[in-house]
């Protein structure tokens, strides 16, 4: 059985440019997977009408999608398409202790605290947990034992869809991420926090996103989120292309 890298890469009809740089992500992860004896899977098609379920949630179908394709798996990394992995990144599956793993959401805590508090109030009856255990959902390692958890989250989504969409639209503090976090805590999932180097979010805030490419010397998985003044995701395109070519050259491997 292999370890799996799973990514969703759905073209948003309204914002077609948004997924443009994701080819760099795919190519980097494909190469990393090949080097580390993993398999790479990508979902590119809509499962539902976007009004019914936004593609952000599709990552929760990872177990079903793999099983429908008769894929045997050991551990799975579900990773966002706005990330690039360094070719020399160590095999993080070996760090998991077979637990659910993520990286603490380390960026704007104004956003994270509001995310936790607002979802707590409107969707989780005041249930709360340590903000220091709130993880970013852009890099999650799991295994078959977490299948039930994901099923519960999906059931919760369909039972509370209208309320979830309302909270999403009213407050703008996350879609799947806060809900995954609440379920991890409510269900007492044995969570292992990995260091920042495996999901380097908000790199601008850490003062490492710059032309000297310092971020590539500080860690392994670069997450191009929370970039200031990122009009129409132009800076995401810029940095992902630049990083990819810096680390891998100009050749992009298609899926």
């Amino acid at each position: 059985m292999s370890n799996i890298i799973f990514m969703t890469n759905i073209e948003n009809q309204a914002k077609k440019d948004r997924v443009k740089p994701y080819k760099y992500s795919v190519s980097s992860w494909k190469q990393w997977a090949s080097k580390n004896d993993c398999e790479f899977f990508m979902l590119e098609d809509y499962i539902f009408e976007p009004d019914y379920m936004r593609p952000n949630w599709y990552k929760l179908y990872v177990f079903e999608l793999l099983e429908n394709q008769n894929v045997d798996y050991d551990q799975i990394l579900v990773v966002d398409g706005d990330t690039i992995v360094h070719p020399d990144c160590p095999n993080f599956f070996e760090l998991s202790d077979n637990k659910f793993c993520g990286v603490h959401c380390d960026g704007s805590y104004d956003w994270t605290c509001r995310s936790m508090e607002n979802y707590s109030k409107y969707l989780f009856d005041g249930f709360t947990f340590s903000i220091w255990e709130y993880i970013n959902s852009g890099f999650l390692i799991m295994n078959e034992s977490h299948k039930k958890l994901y099923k519960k989250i999906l059931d919760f989504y369909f039972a509370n869809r209208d309320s979830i969409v309302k909270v999403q639209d009213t407050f703008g503090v996350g879609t799947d991420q806060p809900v995954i976090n609440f379920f991890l805590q409510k269900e007492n999932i044995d969570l292992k926090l990995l260091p920042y180097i495996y999901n380097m979010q908000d790199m601008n805030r850490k003062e490492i996103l710059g032309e000297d490419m310092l971020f590539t010397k500080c860690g392994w998985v670069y997450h191009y989120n929370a970039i200031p003044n990122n009009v129409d995701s132009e800076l995401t395109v810029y940095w992902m292309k630049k990083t990819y070519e810096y680390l891998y050259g100009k050749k992009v491997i298609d899926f």
Partner: protein
Amino acid sequence: MVAVNHSSSVYTNSDYSEYAINSWKYWCEKNDVDFKVITEHDDRLGKPVWNKELVHKHAEEYDKIGVVDSDTMIKWDAPNIFDLYEDEFCGVNDNSSLRWIRDSVKVYSKFFPDLEIDYNTYINAGVVFFSKKHLDIFKQVLDFYLENREELDNWNKGGGKEQTIFNFHLVKNNVNLKLLNPEWNLISIHRKDMFSYNWQLNEDQTPFFIKYAYIWHFTGFPVEDRIKIMKKVWDTYRKNYE
């Protein structure tokens, strides 16, 4: 805690340390912990920060010890940190500006050519908790300073004063490091956007740093702001310390 008014400092330490001392004094009494404040400067030392290393003399009779900066305040109801570790060396990873840390490690590495610092375990030296066996590390740092005093007192390459040197000594001594959650030393509060409150629910205007951290470290911004902010925090929450 070292809280020394010194001629080399532009601002008077006691302008802000009075609030730090108030909070720590309350918490220590509540938790049956001895609280020692060093207010006299050792004349062998250039900047007051090096007085911290004298903990190796001041705390010889204790099993567990904490060294905290005079720009920190502890929340009135923080649990007893000394119950949360055995004999590890405890600190909080400082990754607020990885660029600053990289630069700091680079400039000070000339003194430690054979050592490497892992950014994941680089700690902020302003709040550390440890056991008696680690006191010798502070003595080593002091000895290092005294051996290199002239160069360090005239240091103009940036990268801070004591913190990175201290981290190199932790690596050199191969300490068993226990990383604490940021709630035990909340640095760069402004950079984390934690001076704000939940303006969307607007039910509780308590700032996030008060709600979600036990030790607030008012660093990373100008000292005049530090004085104002620490005073405001004390004035707002002083009742909880009575």
